[in-house]
């Protein structure tokens, strides 16, 4: 049993070392194969121009955030700073205290949403993939069908429901409606379906409970897909605007995207400060992306979304 065990472990990982080297080879191959000089030159130029266009808004925001307020909103337009660069706006924004509070709220909400969503989705996906109970097929069919429901059309009844439950202006009010993610159940179930059942059987014969085999055998094998799903859920929760915007009125409970929308109006013409808070708000996910780029890109491939 143990020999088959190890061989299957490598075979269920969707992106193993071998895949990665294959991908690397692909790239170099494509590069040599595509060495039609003229076409390649045009391609390079197009890519450089597009990347520059894509980065201009970010650079413009960073540059503005480092200017003095009087410089940024000077009626005599200039791209480069005339009064030097300064961190004044960042200091002002942080001292005002709102942005750090909102960032904290976003962090708490996103982490809790991610943990709860992944936990209940993984349990359900395992239940749908590996167990039987009355109504299982029916429940799974309803879950899959609900992927079609655009969540935004539910804001009105959800708001009424939260009102009735007295969850307006509370963390649970922001968090709970976000933890239902049929798409993630679908992705996880598809993955669990590919995990060989023999591994669990051995543990079952040794007397391990269902939950225990799930925790100690299936979950460790599913690390890549769990990471991918967590990243998707976290980005979604971090950037969610509509629901927190509707359910929260208390300024101390606002999440970053919603708080920033109110600041834009409050600051009026203070462009340097607005850009400084925008940059501060953008930083956490950008840093996470730079650190975990490989995993995120792999996540797209692993989730089945990126496959052919």
């Amino acid at each position, binding site marked *: 049993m143990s020999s088959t065990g190890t061989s299957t472990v490598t075979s269920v990982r969707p992106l193993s070392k071998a895949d990665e080297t294959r991908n690397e080879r692909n790239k170099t191959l494509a590069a040599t194969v595509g060495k039609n000089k003229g076409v390649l030159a045009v391609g390079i130029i197009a890519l450089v121009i597009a990347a520059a266009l894509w980065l201009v808004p970010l650079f413009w925001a960073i540059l503005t955030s480092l200017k003095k307020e009087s410089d940024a909103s000077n009626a005599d337009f200039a791209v480069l700073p005339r009064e030097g660069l300064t961190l004044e706006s960042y200091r002002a924004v942080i001292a005002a205290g709102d942005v750090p509070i909102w960032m904290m709220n976003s962090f708490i909400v996103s982490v809790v949403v991610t943990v709860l969503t992944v936990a209940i989705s993984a349990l359900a996906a*395992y239940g749908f*993939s590996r167990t039987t109970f009355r109504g299982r097929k029916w429940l799974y069919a309803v879950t899959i069908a609900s992927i079609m429901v655009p969540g935004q059309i539910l804001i009105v009844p959800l708001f009424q429901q939260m009102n009735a439950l007295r969850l307006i202006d509370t963390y649970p009010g922001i968090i709970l409606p976000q933890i239902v993610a049929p798409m993630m159940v679908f992705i996880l179930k598809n993955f669990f379906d590919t995990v*060989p059942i023999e591994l669990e059987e051995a543990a079952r014969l040794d007397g391990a409970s269902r939950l225990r085999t799930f925790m100690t055998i299936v979950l460790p094998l599913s690390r890549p897909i769990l990471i991918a799903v967590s990243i998707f859920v976290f980005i979604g929760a971090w950037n969610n605007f509509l629901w927190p915007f509707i359910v929260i009125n208390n300024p101390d409970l606002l999440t970053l995207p919603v708080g920033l929308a109110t600041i834009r109006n409050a600051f009026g013409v203070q462009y340097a400060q607005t850009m400084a808070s925008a940059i501060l708000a953008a930083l956490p996910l950008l840093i996470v992306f730079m650190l975990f780029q490989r995993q995120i890109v792999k996540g797209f491939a692993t989730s089945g979304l990126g496959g052919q």
Partner: protein
Amino acid sequence: MSSLTSSNEAQAPVAARGSSSAPSGSRSTNARARSIQGRSGFWFVLPFAAAFAMFLIWPILSGLWMSFTNQSLTGSGSAFAGFDNYSEALGDAALWQALGNTVIFTLLTVVPLVVLSFVLAYLVYIGLPGQWLWRLSFFAPYLLPVSVAVAIWQWMFQPDFGLFNGLLLRAGFAQIPFLSEASLAMFSVVVVTVWWTLGFNFLLYLSALNNIPDHLYEAASIDGAGPWRRLFSITIPMINRTTVMIIMLQILASLKVFEQIFLLTNGGPNGATRSVLEYIYDVGFTGYRLGYASAISYLFFALIIVISIVQLRVMNRKSA
């Protein structure tokens, strides 16, 4: 049963090698495993099922009920109204305008968000050094909260000393009212949306391209196929499934546009950029008419289902 067959296929060779005592293969092993587990499976699904019933099924049903009433946000008057809300919606000029705007927005965004994201992903794929830099350039905007993306672009569109008009005025041209003129505002919204969301499709394409097996290219170049030939005979057909999926996801996402329009133009000027979802929000939360807002939600939902079904039909025929 179909849900289990895929796992059977995956494990079949393993079972054949692993256990000599199971000559009939995976099906019997599976049955044995299931007899061990009994009914306990429901407990795995219970937490999700409870949240699902509470925060998805219940709102769907209560919203449907609400759409037949005069429910208002202030709580007063929830009398049964029959199909009044629905018949009012059909004759509501503002709703038709919002629907028209939504369709135009969808047409204007889907094409660049599919074509451009493919072209950029392909250019990155055919091999320039420093993939991470290109990935970062195109994907970074997708990671911005919508209010950050909008704040940056509002600053670029600013009439007097925003980047675009500042440069235009410097160069002696007239300023362009990007957000305040009806005919331009929709294009500005589209530009912001393409910039903000392209990275998602770009990464999907990039990972699909990286999954194409290299022996196909090897064989093609041995047969003397040039770069264009390889692009149209290998690359594009091989990523067909990804393209179909991106088109479908993009159409649905564009139909549901709300946040960037709400923050950038608030639907203005004169409703020229107001989308259906923004109209639902306006009716329900600024106009306090929850019943009517629900009715519009359900009409829109029905429309989305019809579009999805049509898409599925067309796409299935294409790939078949």
